[in-house]
């Protein structure tokens, strides 16, 4: 197995046993499903259009990281939890080789595109089922997390990350944000940014929040009390 050194974390959400990987995808053994959020394909070329020539390999990197996981878990289904494409038109800019990679990844398994705000229309260049949201086991999968309590919801959209303090310095990493009832997945896309889980955008969503922080070789749980805010404006602080 390619990255068997990674220690995955077992997380219970609404009674379902899920596995958070250090790469940022969620595996659901009972459903044999691999779930990834916010792939943001072609974010690089989106910047290039405006003269910021980011390396054009973000799509490829994202796909290769997915391929590693697909080979390891051999999932029956892969679910993209919305914002798979960075913007309308991104699909058409995708390099042929990347498109082939994606097609290969889709072959022989169920593929579901949950639509997101960056990609409200279904893809035209690729196969797969399309839906606004889907039910699986006792969970519902959608792009944007519901405000307030939402037991049994798996969502993306917010790109959760956590800032952890140790030894007088802090590290900011992507994370799975969850309590026992719901979860927000980290963005999987190579160029996707992150939003601190202590931001007001998450307010009221979790009971006892745990941030499952992605390290290079493992996923490490932190209770919300152990997390640090990003430097923020006063308005954000008051709301938090």
């Amino acid at each position, binding site marked *: 197995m390619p990255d068997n050194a990674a220690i995955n974390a077992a997380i219970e959400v609404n009674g379902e046993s899920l596995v958070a990987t250090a790469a940022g995808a969620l595996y659901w053994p009972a459903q044999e499903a691999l779930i990834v959020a916010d792939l943001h394909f072609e974010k690089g070329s989106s*910047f290039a259009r405006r003269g910021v020539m980011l*390396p054009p*390999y973000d799509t490829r990197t994202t796909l290769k990281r997915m391929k590693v996981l697909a080979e390891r878990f051999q999932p029956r289904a892969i679910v993209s939890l919305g914002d798979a494409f960075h913007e309308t038109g991104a699909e058409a800019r995708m390099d042929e080789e990347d498109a082939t990679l994606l097609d290969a990844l889709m072959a022989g398994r169920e593929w579901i595109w949950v639509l997101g705000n960056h990609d409200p229309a279904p893809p035209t260049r690729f196969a797969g089922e399309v839906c606004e949201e889907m039910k699986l086991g006792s969970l519902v999968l959608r792009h944007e997390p519901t405000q307030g309590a939402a037991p049994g919801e798996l969502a993306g959209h917010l790109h959760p990350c956590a800032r952890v303090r140790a030894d007088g310095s802090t*590290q900011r990493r992507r994370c799975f944000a969850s309590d026992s009832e719901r979860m927000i997945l980290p963005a999987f896309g*190579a160029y996707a940014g992150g939003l601190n889980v202590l931001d007001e955008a998450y307010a009221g969503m979790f009971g006892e929040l745990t941030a499952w922080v992605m*390290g290079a070789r493992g996923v490490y749980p932190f209770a919300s009390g152990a997390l*640090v805010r990003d430097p923020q404006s006063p308005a954000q602080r008051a709301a938090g």
Partner: protein
Amino acid sequence: MPDGALSTSDLPPVFAGWFAARGWRPRAHQLACLEAARGGRSHLLIAPTGGGKTLAGFLPSLIEIAEAGARRSNCERRVHTLYISPLKALAVDIARNVETPVREMDLPIRLETRTGDTPASRRQRQKYNPPDILLTTPEQVALLLANKDAARFFGGLKTVIIDELHSLIGVKRGQLLALGLARLHRLAPGLRCVGLSATVPDPQPLLDFLTPQNAGVDEAALIRAEGGVKPIVRVLNSENRIPWAGHSARHSWTEVYEAIKASKMTLVFVNTRSQAEMTFQALWSMNDDNLPIALHHGSLDVERRRKVEAAMTRGGLRAVVCTSTLDLGIDWGDVDLVIQIGAPKGASRLTQRIGRANHRMDEPSEALLIPGNRFEVLECIAAKDALDEGALDGEAPRDGALDILAQHVLGMACAEPFFPDELFAEVISSAPYRDLPRETFDEILEFVATGGYALKTYERFRRIVKTPEGRYRVRNPETAQQYRMNVGAIVEAPAFNVRLVSTKGPRRPGRILGTMEEWFIEGCAPGDTFLFAGEVLRFEGVDGPDALVTRAPDEDPKIPSWNGGKFPLTTYLAERVRKMIHDRKSWRAMPDPLREWLEMQREVSVIPKPDELLVETFPHTNRFFLVCYPFDGRLAHQTLGTLLTRRLERLGLQPMGFVPTEYSLSIWGRQDMSGVDMAALFDEDMMGDDLESWLQESVLMKRTFRDCAVIAGLIERRYPGVQKTGRQVSFSADLIYDVLREHEPNHVLMKAAWADAAGGFLDLKRLSNLLARIKGKIRRSDLTRVSPLAIPVMLEINKTVIHGEAQEAMLKEASDALIAEGMRRA
């Protein structure tokens, strides 16, 4: 004076009269500069501060403009002389200084400054109605050259004067300026370049800087100011015990205070900003005589710094505790003593710092060196000996950086369409880029146009496009705007303003005390206290671009230190220290505790020969240690430690950590390392794969890459106080680094970052020289307990533990600790 040289009588009457009226005679070097200038020859003037250097630089221009003044009509006015200073404040001060003779001789000459602070209206006016003499900074020169008007604006330029040229050699700012100079030489053929410099070990790189290379132009003339008396340098032999470790020189603070009391005006140089704060605080607490002592370092608010400088010039201060911020600049008044606290690091730097004292050339400068620990005593003695011999250390400047070249190429496309062949010829006429291969230039060109990736998907988004006749021009005004926003070679670390708020009532925002790096503020929790601007401050929180603090005078600062400015010990000084340790005769000149320490080392372990590497192994507190003494600086030792740890790991020796100092490296682990084949362990091949795989995850490497990406214009600069908005539009340079490294590890920007890392935080050149030097010369000493020489590094261990895997380990530990805590409660 040699025959045929100019004398006072060769000055135009008004100038001769001006000198005479003040009771002055032009100095020999001033006349030599004039002579070189009359011959149209570029020249380099090396003189200590206060040697009339400024006047020597400007005199030829003043005479030329004054003589032409009568003849020229107003509409012909173009910039005659461009003065470039690395410091904005210096440009402003020099303008004031040069205005004095202009006014007193009533010369028809207009002088103006142009800096980032110059109002837009004046800058606009300067374009169509330029002054005779324009005083500015390297960044402004780049901006002026990227303008469509550049050819007209600089067409009449006769002279460029570059002040403090020594500080621009081998650094990116200087490289950007060198490229700008190449363009100026093309726009104004026959241009005369004048460099003004402090004493340097090797003037050749400075001479090369001034004239076009590969172009058959005469080399610049070298003019040295007469004499200057050798400084009187003393190493403090403290009455108190010399510490084993640390750099604070705490044991000598009383003696520092006494030295200040006995002098008129003292500059107290320290090596880091946190040390400046600490020293200042200490001096102030013992200041029973109420001496006016001030603090000056790069994080303090500019206004505060200007006030201190003004007070110095007025003679209103007795001492200033400062960092390298006062290494450069105009005469700050009558300094009669320079104190260096902590290791001097290099003979040249020390010479320049001491040169800040007593700006009368016929009196010797006085300096006092205060070592902070035992090894620093050795280093101070070595530096003093070097200075007494007049020896200076120096290293050849690095080749021009590729990120700087990328920035310049875009700037030139903004100015006017160019043929690649012509621009290449121009670029390689600048000294830092004279060996640039054409392929690399083409790579940079492609980088500027499309990012230069092997995957060609950005063709249609090109930033510079080819015209039908084969020139390159900038695609649109937005691209030119991008360039203007990004110009410059300095990437400021993201920082917060440190703003004082009142402790009582509503938090009204108060004064800004200075700035503090983002990483430091991020590591602070509300309630944490630290030393800044000479006060103990309590961190309250963050508000937009401000870190809010309150005064906490009664508390001990909890977070004692923050980084800022650390130079490694120079190779030259290191060599002297190694020799000194080996040469028992030289021990006699050392303070008793030092001599006893080395004698003890000789008895229980080994004193290595100067070219040997001593490697000691011993057990200590349930662990096994390996300590070696290369004396090659903390940076090289840190890289060495990382690589050795990886190797020991592979040998199954379970290393647990390492700590580097300026002089030695200590590694510890769970198993005895005395059986290791040291020759194999220290083999040069560690610079290959081990290094490669470590860099993949190195935080410092990512930071280096980010800076290169910003300078090269790949990602936008973050300006202090401007926070990014829109959470998902932002991306981090780390992510880009990971992706690029995976797909194109040889991309031109990776090469740029690698070159920076190799010469910077990794100090690879130093490390590879070290490994080559000690090949076959490892002297091992397997001991049963700590050796005397090992004590200093052993004391550092509890303070800083660094390990290649530190980040991941920290994450795991922090998480584990929390889990353990949670389990206990349950």
